[in-house]
């Protein structure tokens, strides 16, 4: 990676050099962690460890970015097509795993149990489709972007432009979420406000991609993968040793799960737990009732609290109790404060439910509810899989391998590197649950574990603990964990020093930066290559093309950061929606384009529009945030089909896309001889006398 591309270097020598550099790099990084660990023992403050991790890793990525700078178009767009299968696999892994995978995944599984596994299966099973239907053929086609293929196969600018539109639609919402994630992590590391953290993160993203395009992004992504996987594994392995006495968490957690299941049963029946759940239920119901008639409730409640306070004073109750009662009276001084409190209390309602059984699939009170849960689970898996196989920033990576042969192998490596993290996340979720059920639930408030005490003061959305029944003992129903805390607190739960917490943050940062890089490049390339070069100025010089590409990269990055700094409300939903959009728009057109010669231009155009259209329509009428944006007034229930959640809207768009392409294609004349030749060309890794579509 440190060498300029030199013709006299064979691919084999290049591979050797890469292996050497990255082994040295990994060793160096581990040494760096050890040095910091020693420094911590010698008294280096936590904040400085955080700073060191943040700036050292960003400086490292910047260095790789600068070394990989390039003025060559093929290097800029597809890293010179010399990335060996295994390295492309690592880069794809980093490209794929976002801040949400790294930080949010285990937490999501902790909270959702079996139902959360839809993400695990969906985000890995999609690679089977990439391997069988897309990667080798796109590699043989060998151009720069996904709209390139649509433009060439479905002859003309319309298909290309729809491709550009879809690529930007999917990637932009996604990149905003990544930039936001980078901002959050930077803010946590350094204490600077999120709005500024977003722009610091942005600088981190741009140093990787600005000078060297795909080439620089590829080699930084490999480096980022190594950091993120080390950061993920160390705490989990340690936790597994601590809890199960066995260093392979993926094997050991079956027994932890059995234990958790048994404990769940106890907690569901425990009288103290039931007491707390009833208190919560009553409080939520009372708040909901008060909200219906605020003025009258305020007066009567205030009177009741004043009476209570007088009674306490009369019996000379302990000062703590009197202070509490005084606060309660004060809270009812104005309607606003009382209303805010009621609204807060009304939101407690879901916490009155008994704990969810972790391994139970498709829970629900009635058989119909369970059926709907199952339908939604399978629909979500379907959308995530097809979406994975249609996201342009992933597919683009398979243009960078040296051959079709390597592209096929590379999908295997990609999944292997993703698999390492994804089959660890469910283990982490269960191990943490095991620890919470044993070391937190049932302990007294006076002797809470250190990590609970520590995080309790950081952020109530991550961890909140309230002694509802005032018995001084923690009940499960009194504890609320936010999804993100599972990964963030694991080092402390495992009893590891702060340096590992710093490492985990660096891993999260690497995950967010690498994904943001890939996405940003996809958007900027769609604009610079597909719109500017292909449609506006096909005679532009190499130098001019690269200038345009880099300018657009900067513009898109600034837009993403500007949007992220607004903390948009629907962003989390939009990220998952990106999968349904990509699945419904790209997948049918790409797959039929390769496997069905008869697919015509008009068919593909209609299919992409129809697939995207129906997906969008379903989301806009059933998703609360989008309904607000578009002012939909009809009820959600009457717009819902088969009880499917809006996140899986692609389940309608994908089949419709296929059907429309097929029907319209059969109604329009057969594609030209040239297009049929192109299809044959991509189907065979080498065809004597065939076309040459490779773009350099």
């Amino acid at each position, binding site marked *: 990676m440190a060498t300029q591309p030199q013709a006299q270097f*064979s*691919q*084999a020598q290049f591979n050797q050099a890469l292996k050497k550099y990255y082994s040295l790099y990994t060793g160096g990084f581990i040494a760096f962690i050890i040095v910091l660990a020693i420094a911590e023992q010698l008294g280096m403050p936590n904040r400085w460890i955080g700073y060191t991790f943040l700036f050292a890793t960003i400086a490292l990525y910047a260095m790789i970015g600068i070394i990989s700078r390039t003025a060559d178009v093929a290097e800029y767009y597809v890293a010179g097509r010399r990335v060996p299968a295994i390295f492309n696999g690592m880069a794809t892994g980093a490209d794929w795993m976002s801040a949400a995978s790294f930080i949010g995944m285990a937490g999501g599984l902790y909270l959702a149990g*079996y139902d959360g*596994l839809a993400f*695990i*299966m969906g985000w*890995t*099973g999609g*690679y*089977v489709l990439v*391997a*069988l*239907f897309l990667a*080798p053929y796109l590699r043989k086609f060998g151009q720069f972007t996904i709209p390139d293929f649509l433009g060439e196969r479905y002859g003309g600018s319309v298909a290309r432009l729809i491709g550009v539109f879809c690529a930007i639609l999917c990637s932009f919402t996604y990149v905003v979420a990544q930039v936001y994630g980078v901002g959050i992590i930077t803010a946590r590391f350094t204490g600077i406000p999120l709005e500024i953290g977003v722009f610091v993160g942005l600088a981190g993203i741009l140093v990787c991609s600005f000078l060297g395009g795909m080439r620089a992004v590829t080699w930084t992504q490999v480096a980022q993968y190594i950091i993120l996987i080390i950061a993920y594994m160390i705490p989990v392995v340690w936790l597994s040793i601590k809890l199960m006495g066995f260093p392979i968490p*993926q*094997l050991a957690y*079956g*027994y932890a*799960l*059995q234990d958790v299941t048994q404990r769940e049963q106890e907690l569901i029946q425990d009288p103290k737990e039931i007491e707390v759940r009833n208190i919560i239920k009553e409080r939520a119901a009372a708040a909901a009732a008060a909200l219906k008639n605020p003025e009258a409730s305020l007066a009567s409640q205030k009177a009741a609290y004043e009476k209570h306070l007088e009674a306490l004073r009369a019996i000379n109750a302990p000062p703590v109790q009197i202070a509490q009662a005084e606060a309660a009276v004060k809270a009812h001084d104005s309607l606003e404060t009382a209303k805010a409190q009621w609204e807060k209390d009304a939101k407690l309602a879901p916490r009155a439910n008994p704990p969810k059984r972790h*391994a*139970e*699939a*498709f829970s629900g009170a009635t058989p119909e509810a*369970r059926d709907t849960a*199952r339908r939604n*689970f*399978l629909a979500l*898996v*379907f959308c995530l*899989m097809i979406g994975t196989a249609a996201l342009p920033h992933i597919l683009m990576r398979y243009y960078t391998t*040296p*051959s*079709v*042969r390597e592209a*096929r*192998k590379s*999908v*295997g490596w990609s*999944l*292997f590197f993703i*698999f390492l993290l*994804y*089959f660890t996340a*469910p*283990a982490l979720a269960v191990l943490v649950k095991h620890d919470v059920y044993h070391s937190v639930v049932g302990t007294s408030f006076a002797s809470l574990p250190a990590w609970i005490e520590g995080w309790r003061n950081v952020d109530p959305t991550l961890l909140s603990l309230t002694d509802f029944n005032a018995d001084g003992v923690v009940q499960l129903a009194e504890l609320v964990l936010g999804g993100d805390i599972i990964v963030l607190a694991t080092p402390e739960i495992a009893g590891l020093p702060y340096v590992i917490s710093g490492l985990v943050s660096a891993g999260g940062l690497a995950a967010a930066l690498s994904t943001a890089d890939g996405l940003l490049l996809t958007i900027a390339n769609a604009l610079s290559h597909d719109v500017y070069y292909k449609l506006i100025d096909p005679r532009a010089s190499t130098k001019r093309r690269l200038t345009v590409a880099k300018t657009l990269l900067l513009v898109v990055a600034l837009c993403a950061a500007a949007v992220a700094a607004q903390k948009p409300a629907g962003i989390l939903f939009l990220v998952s929606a990106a999968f349904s959009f990509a699945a419904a728009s790209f997948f049918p057109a790409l797959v039929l384009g390769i496997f069905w010669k008869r697919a015509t231009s008009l068919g593909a155009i209609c299919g992409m529009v129809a697939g995207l259209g129906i997906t969008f329509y379903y989301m806009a009428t059933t998703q609360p945030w989008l309904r607000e944006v578009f002012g939909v007034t009809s009820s959600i229930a009457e717009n819902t089909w088969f009880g499917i959640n809006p996140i899986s809207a692609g389940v309608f768009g994908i089949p419709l896309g296929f059907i429309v392409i097929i029907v319209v294609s059969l109604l329009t004349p057969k594609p030209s001889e040239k297009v049929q030749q192109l299809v*044959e060309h991509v*189907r*065979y*890794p*080498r*065809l*004597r*006398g*065939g076309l040459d579509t490779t773009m350099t």
Partner: protein
Amino acid sequence: MELTEKHQEYWRKNLRISAILMAIWFVVTYVAGYFAPQLNQITFFGFPLGFYMGAQGSLIVYLIIIVYYATYMNRLDKEYDVAEEEE
């Protein structure tokens, strides 16, 4: 250029193996997913089997499918003389 009978056969074989692997993919994903509550009655290495398939089993099968396909096709390329030139 005209495709020879051999080329057609290569493509048919590719479609066949893809179909078989997709069938396996479908079973581990959707059939196992659909019957997860029933599979959960069975214990496998300490795990309820339905949960295990979602968390690990299916992932392992996906990986095997991809690796097998790559090996199979890379061999088929050579057999049918459509492999890329070695460097």
